[in-house]
């Protein structure tokens, strides 16, 4: 990816941050974890930063145009630790939110790579744009 394209993407994300995108959906910016939603052709791509989480600690449920993500990050034994700085968070979360359209629940894939969860969801047939020929 060209640096220029990437800088554009960062700018674009900043702009989106300040804009209400899907009125009426259950997105709420103050819920954990923060999410970014992208689109590529007819696929929705949701990305979220979950450093320190393991695959087995996460659960994803999708129903029509709603997604539920939940998880737990456990802290290791801290008994013999003398902390100087504690900024990383541990605990549980559960977040439900609406997608801009229905997705095909048979065609969903999720990957966890380097602490980023990526969920790819294909648009449901019923939600795809159809052009209607005028008779």
């Amino acid at each position, binding site marked *: *990816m060209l*640096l220029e*394209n*990437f*800088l554009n*993407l*960062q700018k*674009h*994300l*900043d702009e*989106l*941050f300040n804009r209400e*995108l*899907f009125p009426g959906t259950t*997105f709420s*910016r*103050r*819920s*954990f*974890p*923060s*999410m*970014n*939603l*992208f*689109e*590529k052709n007819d696929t*929705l*791509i949701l990305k979220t*930063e*979950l*450093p*320190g*989480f*393991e695959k087995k600690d996460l659960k994803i449920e999708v129903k029509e145009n709603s997604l539920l993500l939940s998880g*737990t*990050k*456990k*802290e290791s034994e*801290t008994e*013999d*630790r*003398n*902390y*100087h*700085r*504690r*900024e*990383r*968070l*541990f*605990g*549980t*979360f559960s977040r439900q939110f609406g997608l*801009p359209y229905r997705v095909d629940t048979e065609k969903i894939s999720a990957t*966890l790579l*380097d*602490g*980023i969860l990526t969920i790819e969801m294909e648009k449901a047939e019923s939600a795809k744009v159809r052009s209607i020929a005028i008779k």
Partner: protein
Amino acid sequence: MTANELEVKDKKELETTSEKTYSCKVYVPDTDIYENDKEIILEVDIPGVNKNDVKIQLENSVLSIEAKMRPQDYDKLNPLYSEYNIGHFYREFRIGEMVERDKIDASVNNGVLKLTLPKIEKLKPKQIAVR
């Protein structure tokens, strides 16, 4: 301890005194620092960074961590909605004299960098038996 509800924490952008030569966003990674008798341990959240893109340097007493994410992961993606921005990570730490500098160990797992800084032998606490 696992019953806490996780809360959103905004990413903090790096503030530098020197002018940057590029306009890419750089964030300060959240870090835990703790020690025990033998070592000092740093755990740094660097989501989206592969271990090959982490550069750790120790110069004089400053340990610097530079972690670069992969812009190509976002190639051809059209953003619809955003709650956080993406960028590289950078942070510096001042290291004391008690660290065994040649034996610093680093590993990356699930987007978390773990640095282990062993303490110099003679500084480790010792039990003195009372005769």
